[in-house]
């Protein structure tokens, strides 16, 4: 669906379904330089299993217009505003990579709107090396290549895909090229500068789910485990893939999330 938010055309993927306010809602939040296509194999899946699914393209990302946000705090406020505009009062928030930092910040900003949090290939602190930030600034296409190559596990790099015919690396690159050129560098700086993640994680009083990737070199497993240890009530899983876990292991991830959502509802 398209809506006007902050005077910008804003796209929120719903899996092609209308939003029904009496249904439970899950919101998938994309990572740095990504957009709703990070969750192609989650959006339609959960939208057809009794949930409202909302996966917004942040400003300057995917189909949304506007200048990309420049901090995680701004991201969290923007997300909250979009969901309020749609009329969603409570939801499960699922973040991938940078989306995990957005979720952590939102958990401090307005915890009462959250029913649960799903952290996918994330950490409480995501430092980004200067080289990648530099490339994202001066040559974004090169930075996309680097991220896509680093971000997939070995099987993903070998074009092993659950979706017949798809090649992860080229697809990842094309997804990033839909965004405004400044989106990636803004996102990487937002990640690098965000310091509130660990204390936010320690303050969460919800049942959370963390799904990490064994071969993740963007947010290494070690950093993800630190997040797991910081959250009081947390179920965690480690899948054999790279950072782009939602595309590399969609079925396993969906099964884990579905189980988590059922437990939350009970």
């Amino acid at each position, binding site marked *: 669906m398209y809506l006007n938010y902050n005077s910008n055309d804003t*796209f929120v*993927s719903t*899996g*092609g379904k209308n939003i029904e306010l009496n249904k439970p809602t899950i919101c998938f939040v994309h990572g740095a330089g990504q*957009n709703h*296509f990070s969750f*192609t*194999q989650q*959006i*339609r*899946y959960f939208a*057809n*299993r009794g949930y409202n699914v909302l996966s917004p393209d942040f400003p300057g990302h*995917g*189909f949304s217009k506007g200048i990309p946000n420049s901090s995680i705090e701004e991201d969290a406020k923007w997300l909250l505003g979009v969901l309020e505009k749609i009329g969603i009062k409570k939801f499960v928030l699922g973040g991938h990579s940078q989306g995990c930092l957005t979720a952590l910040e939102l958990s401090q900003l307005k915890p009462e709107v959250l029913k649960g949090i799903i952290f996918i290939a994330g950490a409480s602190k995501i430092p980004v090396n200067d080289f990648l930030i530099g490339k994202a600034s001066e040559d974004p296409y090169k930075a*996309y*290549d680097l991220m*896509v*190559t680093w971000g*997939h596990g070995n*099987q993903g*790099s*070998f*074009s*092993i*895909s*659950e*979706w*017949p*015919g*798809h*090649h992860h*690396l*080229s*697809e*990842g*690159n*094309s*997804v990033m*090229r*839909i965004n405004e050129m400044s989106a990636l560098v803004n996102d990487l700086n937002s990640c690098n500068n965000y310091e509130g993640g660990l204390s936010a994680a320690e303050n969460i009083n919800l049942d959370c789910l963390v799904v990490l990737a064994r071969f993740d070199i963007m947010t290494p497993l070690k950093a993800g485990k630190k997040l797991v240890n910081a959250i009081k009530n947390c179920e965690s899983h480690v899948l054999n893939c790279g950072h782009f876990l939602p595309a590399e292991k*969609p*079925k396993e991830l*969906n099964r884990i999330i579905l189980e988590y959502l059922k437990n939350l509802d009970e």
Partner: protein
Amino acid sequence: MSEKYKFDTMSLHAGHVPDKETGSRAVPIYQTTSYVFNDTDEAAALYNMEVGGHLYTRISNPTVATLEQRLSALEGGVSSIACSSGMAAMHLVISAICSQGDHIVASNKMYGANINLLQHTMPRFGIETEFVNPNNLEQIKKAIKPNTKLVFGEVIGNPGLDIMDISSVAKICEENNIPLVIDATFNTPYLMKPFEFGANIVIHSLTKWLGGHGIAIGGVIINGGNFDWSNKKKFPTIAGPHFALDGISFWEEFGPSAITAKIRAEGMYNFGPSLSPMNAFYVLQGIETLSLRMKRHMENTAHMLKFLSNHEAVSWVKHPDLKSHPDHSIAKKILPKGSGSIIVFGVKGGRDAGKAFIESVQLSSHLANVGDAKTLLIHPGSTTHSHLSSEAMKSAGLTDDMIRLSVGLEDIDDIKKDFEIGFKSILKNN
């Protein structure tokens, strides 16, 4: 283009890891029509394109998917659909993009079946084509109308070996928000990758160099993921609600892979031109040695160009690697590894001499195919176009004396010896 492993490595490995259950190193041939669902939920998810997977071999198959993923990786595309032939690939692309009342701009220097489909068959379904000289950019610009939905051409034209300046044509297409669809059969991704020059969709006949052994017919559509399909007025069945899957918008749901998602959901489902798993396996075996074969094809082609150019029985030789070819400068720019292993040449003595040559050679095979490991020949004047007068041949860009050679991988001395036998028969008759 993002890549962790290089071309030769991906030719061998892309799309497949050893089978978990059996350890099979080779790609298994999944000779099955259908797949057992774990439960109704999984079945629903597959039918509804919520997740990837296989439900019926007409739509997809694990062996075929390995081939598709390998070709996506080698071309630098985001997604592929393999199908029963190169012509099926072309029809699938046209039917996915165009509807009744739409218009196509296409090269007039293409494979006869491509022209036939556009000139005679598609108009019956309300899709008209304007044919243009692929390197006359002004003519292409003028031919584009508000209802033009795609521009189509071949990198290396068959049989005239004209080279399309892909970058220049791609710019025109981009300015007009029209996808550029390229048949890249004669070059294969080893010699040139059209996406790097701005093409949006690439098709191949897998029957030729990719399969490489003349044993299996197949085709593929590879999606560059670099086209904006968001214009609902122009591409209503891709960007707008489609009858399939509850009014799905392929663009909003699948973005860069929208076109292949649509072809999978509509073209493969409704028309059913699927590639058999066995043929997919044969093509995969071919691709494993693609770069080795292409190197040898090009070496032998260079030898044959020299040999033919200096032979007293030969009246002319045409190949884009020769300076005399009108598109030589474009070929040098976009095909630095060589312009493919097809050579066309004329023999002194016209149609009868051509016939005598073809009937005298003993090693080269006289047949209607190209891109085999074996050397192949055909004389259009006495076979495919024998019903045409000399004048009609000329207007089709062919001549009485023309022979099409697909240079094989045999020892070059043996190919030359074989040609000498053919030429002797001409010189004797002359």
